[in-house]
C-alpha cells in the first residue's frame, strides 16, 4: 500500500534526525542542570555569566533548527503524495513537530532545546526557577536561603497566540454567524457571581449569560435566514430518549406526590395536636365543673349545719316528738335499754366521744337489747285508742234494719 511506504519512508527520514536531536537534548539538559546547581551554590551569580550561557544555548538551538528544517522539507514532499481519502482536511504536520521520544519528556516541563524563537522567553523564565528535585543534595543551611516556588510559572503568551492562530475558527463579523454560532458575553461571570458556593446565585448567573447569548444568536440567525425554532410537526431523535424522559416524569410525579403527602401529614399532625389540646381543655373544664358543684354542696351543707343546728333542727325534733323520747330515755332506769344513749354518760360535753359511743356502743349488756320486759310491756305510750277507732268509721254509718228493709223493698 501507498500509505505503508510513506510511513516507512517517514520513519527513516525521522530517525536520522532523531539521534542527533537526542544527543543535543541531553547535552542541553546537562548544561541546564549544571547551571542550576551552580546558581544555587553561588547564590547570586553575576548577570553577565548567565546571559552568556543563555546565548550559547540559543545558538545551539538555532543550529539544530536548521538541520531539522532540512528534514522537514523532506517530510513535506512525502505529505504531498498522500492519497488517503478523507472528508476532514487534516492539517499538515508542522516540520518542527516534536518526535515521539521527546514528547514524553517534554511534558515534564523541563527546559527544551528544540523550540523556535518565541520559546526563548519561556526559557528565560525557567532559568529563574529550579525544580526542587535538583536541590535535594544541598545542605540545610543553603536551603534556608532559597525562596521555594511551589510550581513553575509558565505562561508563554506568544506561543499561546500562535497556537491560537493555528486552531481558531473565524468568528468575527466577516463570516456568517451560522458557521460558528459562538457568542462571547460582555459581562464577566465572575462579577455576576460573587460567591461560588451560593448555588442559586451561581446558576442564575449561568442562566442569564446563556439567555443573553440565545437572544443575540436568534436575532443574528434570523437576519441570516437560518431556521431557528423547530416546527411542531418536526419529529426526530432526541438527546434524551423516551425511556429517560419517562423516568424523569415518574420522578417528578413522585416528588410532587411526596410533597403533597408530606403537607397532608403535617396538617394532620397539627390537627391532632390541636385536637388533643381541645380534649384536654374539655376534660379540665368538666372536672372543674364537678369540683365546683361539689364545693357548693359542701358549703351548703356546712351552712345548714351551722345555722339550722339551732333553728331548723329543733323544729324537726318538735315535729317528730324526739324531745319526748329523749326525756323518756333520761329517766329510763335500765342502763342498756338503748345503744347510744348510755345512762348517765350522755350528758358529757365531749361530742366526739358521744358520737363514737353511739356508733360502736359502750359498756352494758348487749344481749336481749330488743327483748321485751316488764317495763316495755307496761309502756303504753305507743298506744292510741282513738287512732284504732278512727280508721274504720268515716261518717257514713250503716242504716238500721228497718230502714235497710224499706230501702231494699223500694
Amino acid at each position, binding site marked *: 500500500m501507498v500509505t505503508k511506504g510513506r510511513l516507512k519512508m517517514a520513519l527513516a527520514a525521522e530517525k536520522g534526525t532523531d539521534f542527533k536531536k537526542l544527543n543535543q537534548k541531553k547535552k542541553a539538559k546537562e548544561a541546564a542542570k549544571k547551571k542550576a546547581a551552580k546558581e544555587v551554590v553561588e547564590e547570586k551569580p553575576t548577570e553577565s555569566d548567565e546571559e552568556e550561557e543563555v546565548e550559547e544555548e540559543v545558538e545551539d538551538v538555532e543550529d539544530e533548527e536548521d538541520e531539522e528544517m532540512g528534514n522537514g522539507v523532506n517530510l513535506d514532499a512525502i505529505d504531498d503524495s498522500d492519497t488517503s481519502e478523507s472528508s476532514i482536511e487534516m*492539517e499538515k504536520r508542522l516540520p518542527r513537530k516534536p518526535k515521539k521520544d521527546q514528547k514524553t519528556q*517534554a511534558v515534564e516541563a523541563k527546559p527544551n532545546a528544540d523550540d523556535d524563537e518565541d520559546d526563548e522567553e519561556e526559557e528565560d523564565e525557567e532559568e529563574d526557577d529550579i525544580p526542587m528535585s535538583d536541590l535535594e543534595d544541598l545542605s540545610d543551611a543553603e536551603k534556608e536561603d532559597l525562596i521555594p516556588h511551589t510550581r513553575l510559572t509558565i505562561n508563554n503568551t506568544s506561543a499561546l497566540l500562535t497556537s491560537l492562530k493555528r486552531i481558531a475558527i473565524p468568528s468575527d463579523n466577516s463570516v456568517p454567524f451560522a458557521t460558528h454560532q459562538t457568542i462571547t458575553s460582555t459581562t464577566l461571570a465572575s462579577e455576576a*457571581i460573587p460567591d*461560588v458556593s451560593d448555588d442559586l446565585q451561581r446558576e442564575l448567573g449561568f442562566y442569564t449569560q446563556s*439567555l443573553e*447569548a440565545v437572544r443575540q444568536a436568534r436575532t443574528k440567525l434570523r437576519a441570516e435566514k437560518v431556521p431557528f*425554532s423547530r416546527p411542531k410537526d418536526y419529529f426526530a431523535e432526541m438527546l434524551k430518549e423516551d425511556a429517560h424522559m419517562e423516568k424523569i416524569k415518574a420522578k417528578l410525579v413522585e416528588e410532587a406526590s411526596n410533597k403533597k403527602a408530606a403537607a397532608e401529614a403535617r396538617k394532620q399532625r397539627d390537627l391532632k395536636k390541636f385536637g388533643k389540646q381541645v380534649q384536654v381543655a374539655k376534660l379540665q373544664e368538666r372536672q372543674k365543673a364537678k369540683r365546683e358543684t361539689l364545693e357548693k354542696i359542701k358549703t351548703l351543707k356546712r351552712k345548714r349545719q351551722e345555722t339550722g343546728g339551732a333553728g331548723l333542727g329543733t323544729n324537726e325534733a318538735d315535729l317528730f316528738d324526739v324531745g319526748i323520747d329523749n326525756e323518756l330515755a333520761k329517766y329510763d332506769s335500765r342502763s342498756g335499754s338503748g345503744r347510744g344513749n348510755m345512762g348517765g354518760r350522755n350528758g358529757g360535753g365531749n361530742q366526739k366521744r358521744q358520737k363514737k359511743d353511739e356508733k360502736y356502743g359502750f359498756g352494758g349488756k348487749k344481749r336481749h337489747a330488743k327483748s321485751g320486759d316488764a317495763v316495755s310491756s307496761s309502756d303504753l305510750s305507743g298506744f292510741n285508742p282513738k287512732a284504732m277507732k278512727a280508721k274504720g268509721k268515716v261518717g257514713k254509718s250503716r242504716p238500721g234494719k228497718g230502714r235497710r228493709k224499706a230501702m231494699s223493698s223500694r
Partner: protein
Amino acid sequence: MAAVYKSLSKKDSKKSATTDDNGIKKNKQRVLVLSSRGVTFRHRHLLNDLASMLPHGRKDAKFDSKSKLYELNSLCELFNCNNCLFFEARKGQDLYLHCSSVPNGPTIKFHVQNLHTMEELHFTGNCLKGSRPILSFDAAFDKQPHLQVIRAQFQRIFGVPQGARKSKPFIDHVMSFSVVDGKIWVRNYQINEEEASKLKPAEADADADADATKDTDLSLIEIGPRFVLTPIYISEGSFGGPLIFSNKSFVTPNQVRSDMRRLKATKHNGRSEQTRERLSKKGDLGLRSNIGHERQPDEADTKMLFA
C-alpha cells in the same frame, strides 16, 4: 486500491469543496471521544452524554495506555479525526480531560470536578440529538490568551460544524462556558420558546420585521450534564510538546487528599503528645506506680546495703 484511485482522481475537486463560494474555508471538524481504562460509571456516563451531543464525534473503545498518549495521534488519524477528547481516569476517582487538536496541537489538560451526568440530574430539558448548539462564552474568555486558546478549542470540539453529517437543521440548545473562581463551569440548556404574551405589543411593534410578529418568549431549561473544568496546562503539540501554559493555582487531588490526611494525623499526634507529657509529669511527681520502667538499683538502696 480502488479507494486510492478514487481519491487521487478526486483530488482536484476536493480542494474546491473545502472552500465556500465566498472563498471562506469550510469548517470541518471531527472529534474522537474516548476514555482511558479505569473510568467509573459516572465518568463513562458523562462521556456518553457528551458523545451524544456531538454528531461530528466518534466514540472509540477505552484507550489502554496512560503514558503513551502520543499514540492517540495516530489513532485520530486512523479515524480521520482532527480533534480528540480524551478522558483519563486516575485511581478510579480523579478524572482528567485532554482536549487536543490532532496533528499540531495544542493540547489542553483539564481536571474534571463536580460532574453530574444527565441521568442523575433529572432535568426536564431535552433537545434534538445532533442539533447545533449555540456556544455561549463568558467575557473572561476574551481577556487572557490561555482562555482564548481554550475557547478556540471548545469551538472546534463542542461547536457542531455547519452541515455536519448527522446534524439537525434547527437550533434548540445552548452550551455555556463561564469562568468563575479560576474554573470553567459548563452547562447545557434547552431553548424553550413560548408564545409571547399579549401584554407586550409595544415590543413587537419595535421590531418592524415580519419575523417579529411571531416573536416568542425565550426561556431556558437545563438539560445536563454539569461539570467543572480546571485547566492544568496547555502544551504546544498534540499530546506532547513543550508547555506553553500551566496553571499555578491548580492543586492536584492527591495533594488535597494527603493534606487532609495530614491534618487528621496532626490532631492525633498532638493528642498523643499530650498524654505522653502528662504521664511523664505524673511519673516525675511520683504519682505513678512503676509499670513502665524499672527503677535503677543504686548503691544506697537497702537491698544493696544489706545483701
